[in-house]
């Protein structure tokens, strides 16, 4: 049996007093990557931010178990230090904090300057490192900067919120490669320890990243689970409503 990385049990979440998620259940084993589909505004980001521990997202029911530990009471930074990392859909601008400072901070002293430079080059951020983080960044630049931070942070559970949206066709291959690096996809399956949960609308990321399971999140709950390629095909052909018929 593979080690369990993340277990979501009976989860319900409110944002600003409004219920967003309910009855969410799934499990991700170590080495696996799962994909999350769903129409706009149905709670995908909410789910990731809740796993990460952002204070705005109030868990009203259920449990989040990371490697056998219930992490619900832990603040974000402790979850990060336990090994959970996330790339945000819309990260904030922090004036005066340079991109290089962010990447360095993510490494928490574990990486040499040389390794950090390698990350900066691999993510094609050399021109951006002296700029304030996210300030005036293009959509694709934001995605690459988020991945650079994760590469420095090296989390074991990687939450990616639409890592390929707004990215051009050339850069999408780069993003795919970087995500594969993060998720140790080059290693044989039995040696992969890291897990991923990736939100995607287009599914382009599936061309690069080997994902095991897909979910459709609709009206605040998971209504379908299965092979991610098949789910994507169904959504493209018949829309999200068709997914309702798929009872797991």
């Amino acid at each position, binding site marked *: 049996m593979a080690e369990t990385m993340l277990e979501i049990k009976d989860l319900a979440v409110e944002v600003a007093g409004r219920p967003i998620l309910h009855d969410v259940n799934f499990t991700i084993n170590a080495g696996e990557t799962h994909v999350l589909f769903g129409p706009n505004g149905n709670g995908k980001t909410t789910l990731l931010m809740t796993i990460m521990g952002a204070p705005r997202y109030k868990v009203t029911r259920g449990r989040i178990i990371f490697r056998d530990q219930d992490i619900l009471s832990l603040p974000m930074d402790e979850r*990060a230090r336990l090994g959970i990392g996330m790339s945000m859909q819309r*990260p904030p601008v922090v004036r005066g904090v*340079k991109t290089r400072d962010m990447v360095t901070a993510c490494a928490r002293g574990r990486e040499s300057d040389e390794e950090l430079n390698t990350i900066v080059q691999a993510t094609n951020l050399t021109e951006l490192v002296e700029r304030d983080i996210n300030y005036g960044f293009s959509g694709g630049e934001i995605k690459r900067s988020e991945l650079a931070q994760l590469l420095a942070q090296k989390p074991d559970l990687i939450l990616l919120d639409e890592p390929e949206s707004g990215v051009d066709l050339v850069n999408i291959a780069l993003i795919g490669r970087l995500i594969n690096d993060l998720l140790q996809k080059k290693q044989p399956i039995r040696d992969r320890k890291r897990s991923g949960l990736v939100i995607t609308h287009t599914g382009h990321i599936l061309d690069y990243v080997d994902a095991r399971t897909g979910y459709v999140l609709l009206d605040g709950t998971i209504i379908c689970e299965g092979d991610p390629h098949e789910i994507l095909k169904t959504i493209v052909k018949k829309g999200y409503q068709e997914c309702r018929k798929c009872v797991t």
Partner: protein
Amino acid sequence: MRDLNSEKTRKEKAKTAAVKQARFGNDIDLNRYEHAAENVPYYEDLSKLPGDARQQMLQSGVTVDDVRQRSGTIIQMDHSVIHSLSSQADIEVMSTQKALEKYDWLAAYYWKAVAVDADKYTAHVELNPGNGYFIRALPGGKSTFPVQACLYIGKKNLAQSVHNIIIAEEGSELHIITGCTTSPREEPAMHLGVSEFYIKKGAKISFTMIHNWSPETDVRPRTGIIIEDGGIYLSNYVIMKPVKSLQANPLARCIGENTVTRFNSIVVAPPGSNMDLGSQVILDGKGSRTEIISRAITTGGSITARGYIEGNAPDVKGHLECRGLILKGEGHIHAIPELKGNLAGIDLSHEAAVGKIAEEEVEYLMMRGLTRDEATATIVRGFLHVDIEGLPPGLSQQIKQTIEDAEKDFM
């Protein structure tokens, strides 16, 4: 020949303003302070200075142990210039008393950039002269390293009176770092400092000033800058330590065409500090540009951050950026950016923001594994970071270091 007549009228003018309150800042009763100071002996060898004084100077950016990275040094303690030296033939560094003896023409530079009757503090400096520094770059002269100047108050209860004249002759380039400080005993004292800058055609001055007062010091600097064609004036001001009350509002008059003026200020007010700080730029010369940037943080003190740009000539451009952060406690920040345009074809703008650190930004850094305190410190450091251009090597690093050293005290 010194013009005794004009000197007399100056004194007369000063007398009429002897009790005139300043436009801004709380009124200081000058009679609470002593105005005369005993002579402090000259130090040929600065390493003989008392250790605590050296330490205070170092924290204000003035290094006395190794002056190889300096083009000159002048140190005034109370009312005595205790050391002055220039290591470059094209840069003059001496006390204003000496300079007045040496140059007849110098008197004409007095009270041209600052009005003698502006308020009781300028009047006081005229009526109770207590020395000051004279720094001049000869035509075409360039200071390789900064000239450092230190104004140090050692005597308890002294109202230190200082009148500085700084001249960059045509085509010259002068970098100055001034550290203003007191003895570490934290006794009551006052500093009244008039500084008049003259930037001739095509000349450039960068003026970095680090204030390192005590919680018992009242401070009233009075600064004026006159900039001729193509002149550049870059001011960097840093105060990270407590002060009782501080009010300053330097005025740059850009009379020449195509001048560049930039004021950067980094201001931190701990509890008990009361600061009213501004920068004013009058753009009278065609094509002149200015930028006023201030970052203010209160951890309990009160800050008024002013900025004023006036455009009176075609094609002038000015931008004022004033950002304040209320970090903790019962602090106040009052940002007052003002723009005045008197002509079509000018371009003046400002942005001001006062608030606390955005929670969203703290969370972003916490998401990467930084604790709340680490995240806050990183954001504050970023907030205080201002890109400073036009300084010789080492100086911008030194400003950065001063800020980082002081961060520990208020975070």
